[in-house]
């Protein structure tokens, strides 16, 4: 384990940013969000970013290919640009887990090369939590907020930052910082972890359990009458989806520029009425069904296909942002009653 003084933070950032783009949470008018680090940019102390970290690998919109049309001739233009190395600093445990969840989708055959390239060119530096919020429930999905994964894990104390490399990529980056950090033991980190874990136990959602859910539970929940009640206030907006770190659905659309076509993909939401609309119409044509889809996917379908791993990381963003305060916690509790 390496450590460095908190005063040296800017030096460390400068060192990393010298070779690669470095992104980190920065406070803005509307909470914290990932920004490119430049000298003078301050890291946020907020618990988490408003938008999740999935944007780095799975941006909201991404141009896939372009077609240039001249008269009746069509030229295909490759516009790919996802081969740049970058470092993301300060990712919380929940968001780090979300990358695993996305990987299982995008990196399984057929591999999504756009996503894969971005993943390959990134180094994730996570940051352990110390002050979780009332909306946090990562524990429900066996995520340890005090010991996040990532290529490198960081712990921030009053005066120092501790770093531990978890992967080769992490080792390599840490090695680069050798001159600026010093070797240390993990006692300070352990102390902080204990403290954090004690707080986690006191969280309002600490006892929320996902036990009842998981692969093979489709029949148990699919026809539950609870869906109707749960979904009746749902507006069908995409807020939950768009703040969610694990929602991975997208649409591919062609944009006619007048001189050609830009084929791009953009996030889609299963809450939308035209989601998966096909020639015959829509397979889920009421909001109850669309609402059910989102939660069944997170709690049943995803674990069924991915060795029991849930499609939710308990980050709590949807709890904070849903316009009508309906969310996965309420769904789990209601369905869990039965």
């Amino acid at each position, binding site marked *: 384990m390496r450590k460095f003084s908190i005063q040296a933070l800017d030096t460390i950032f400068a060192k990393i940013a010298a070779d690669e783009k470095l992104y980190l949470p920065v406070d803005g008018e509307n909470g914290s969000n990932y920004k490119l680090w430049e000298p003078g940019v301050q890291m946020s102390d907020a618990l988490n970013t408003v938008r999740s970290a999935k944007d780095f690998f799975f941006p909201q919109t991404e141009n896939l290919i372009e077609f240039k049309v001249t*008269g*009746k001739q069509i030229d295909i233009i490759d516009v790919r640009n996802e081969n740049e190395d970058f470092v993301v600093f300060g990712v919380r445990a929940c968001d780090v887990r979300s990358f695993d969840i996305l990987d299982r989708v995008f990196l399984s055959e057929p591999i999504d090369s756009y996503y894969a390239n971005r993943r390959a060119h990134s180094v994730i530096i996570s940051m352990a939590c110390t002050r979780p919020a009332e909306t946090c429930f990562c524990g429900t999905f066996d995520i340890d907020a005090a010991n996040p994964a990532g290529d490198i894990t960081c712990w921030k104390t009053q005066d120092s930052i501790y770093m531990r490399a978890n992967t080769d990529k992490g080792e390599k980056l840490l090695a680069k910082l050798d001159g600026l950090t010093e070797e240390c033991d993990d006692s300070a980190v352990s102390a902080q972890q204990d403290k954090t874990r004690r707080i986690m136990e006191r969280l309002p959602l600490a006892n929320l359990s996902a036990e009842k859910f998981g692969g093979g539970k489709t029949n148990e929940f699919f026809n539950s009458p609870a869906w109707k009640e749960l979904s009746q206030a749902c507006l069908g907006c995409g807020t939950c989806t768009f703040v969610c770190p694990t929602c991975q659905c997208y649409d591919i659309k062609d944009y*006619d520029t*007048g*001189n050609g076509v830009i084929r791009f993909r953009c996030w889609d939401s299963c809450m939308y009425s035209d989601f998966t609309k096909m020639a015959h119409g829509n397979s889920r*044509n*009421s909001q109850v069904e669309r609402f059910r889809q989102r939660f069944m996917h997170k709690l049943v379908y995803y674990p069924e296909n991915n060795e029991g791993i849930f499609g939710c990381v308990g980050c709590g963003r949807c709890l904070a942002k849903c316009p009508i305060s309906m969310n996965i916690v309420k769904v789990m509790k209601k369905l869990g009653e039965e």
Partner: protein
Amino acid sequence: MQRIGVFVCWCGSNIAGTVDVKAVAEALRSEPGVVFSTDYQYMCSQAGQEIIKEAIKEHKLTGVVVCSCSPRMHEATFRKTAQAAGLNPYMVEIANIREQCSWIHKDMETGTQKAIILGRAAVAKVNLNAPLIPGQTPVTKRALVIGGGIAGIQTALDIAEAGFPVDIVEKKPTIGGKMAQIDKTFPTLDCAACILTPKMVDVAQNENIRIFSYSEVQEVKGFVGNFNVKIKKKARFVKEDVCTGCGICTEKCPQKKVPNEFNLGMDNRRAVYIPFAQAVPKVATIDADYCTMLKTGKCGLCAKVCTAGAIDYTQKDEIIEEQYGAIVAATGFNPISLDKFDEYAYNQSKDVITSLEFERLTNAAGPTAGKLLRPSDGKHPHTIVFVQCVGSRCAACADKGKEYCSKICCMYTAKHAMLTRDKYPDTDVYVFYIDVRTPGKNFDEFYRRAVEEYGVHYIKGMVGKVSPQGDKLMVQASDLLANKQLHIEADLVVLAAAIEPDKSARSIATMLTASMDTNDFFTEAHPKLRPVESPTAGVFLSGTCQGPKDIPETVSQASAAAAKVIGLLAKDKLTSNPCVAHADELMCNGCSSCANVCPYGAISYIDKEFRMPNRTTAIRRVASVNPAVCQGCGACTVACPSGAMDLNGFESAQIIAEVDAICR
């Protein structure tokens, strides 16, 4: 995907002079959807149309773009061409590369580039065109003529002669209009009454004609073939069907001090009156503004003397509702007010009069029984000055006069001058003119006779000032040819006042949704090719409401309008413009925004049952457009937030495609 043919017209050198038509045809060939492209000298010619027809067949075209003159010119032509070749006529679009391109640009490169872009926009639109089928509506076989002057009379007679019922609405108590006030007509000098009144009698006696005199059009709804009109028959306090027109009441009425409008206020009539002896209908009318009985409840003399018992003081305005297939506007003209022309002292001296007043002064039925006497002192005038173009051709004084030429003044002034000299050879007659305009059969000969045979002094120049001095009028004028300033001591000055459309025309145009020009003359559908039709279908124009005209012209236009009306009424069904709005019921949320902005009341709402998820149904209120009533303005399409409302032929997607093509 459409199979579009592009046809680029040279229009002789009109287009080909500044647009490389071959290059345009070549460039458009590579546009999406285009499978054929060619050019030709005159696409609108028989041979040009044949090219289009053959190409439609040979290349199995589904859409046609003609790059030519304005669609206002030949869109209909090319649509018919396409139809003749079996293509839906609404699959044709015009790129206006003449008016909008070749005629305004001088440079070949510029013109060609712009023509290509305009063509491209038309191609983009046609790509989204869909065949449209016109609807059919029945025709009410009855016509309405608004205005009972010579124009309205002639139109009504011609329509009635063809066997169709006609109603004339005249706001005055009698038909006859301005012509009834005129003494003689140029250039033949017939007595106006002698030729007009027989026609008025014909109208009265024609079984197919109804006259609503002392009536006004109050509301017009509907559309070509199916107008629904409300006519207000103003209370005249005399039962029209009972009154015999004997005139006893008009002699006995004690209220004698009512200015007689028929004689332009130069003498008085009674409160109950018949405008003139040959009035049609010959029925008395009580003027509510002056009648003592109606104002105070005391008098009742006319009722006492009326042997027929026709007087009815309790009569109320009556609203008559009637259906018409066609409407003819024949609202006529008035001389403008000369109140603002201080320099001519019209308001200061009774002896400065307008030409129409002069007509009454020389008319046997006028205030002076046909003797030309000065209004001020009843003396015979020895020196008369006529001034032409008073308020006409007046560009600098929009508040006073009119920019246009009133057309008839030159001729009637010559007539007045000639008649004066004929009857009173001892009179000196001067006519001040800017130009003497006499295009018309026997017109110039007439004018020359006034000068050569009757010794009228025609002086090129204008009167600058008229100042009353004692019982004389000092006229200060210029004689431009002699480069002199003249000072004439005149006894009578006659001003040829400009004419303007009747004030009621504006509100009638609004009711008819017929357009007007800035001078309030009705606009014709085409100034040359459709001069008697309004752009609004089913509305026709007769007489001076369309522009200044003399009597022969008015009558010919009146007959022309009648011919158009007859043509319309002869049809049993009308095909309606299919470019109308339509609502997508699945998207409509029934909010009523569209119905609120529809000027025709074409949108109504129905409760419709829709299939909802999971085999349920729901009843929703949705808009429904009556395609026969909709005129296709598109106001609803923008009022509709959901985009459920769209307009055939001008669909949002089509307009957006044009925008895209232009901005590309």
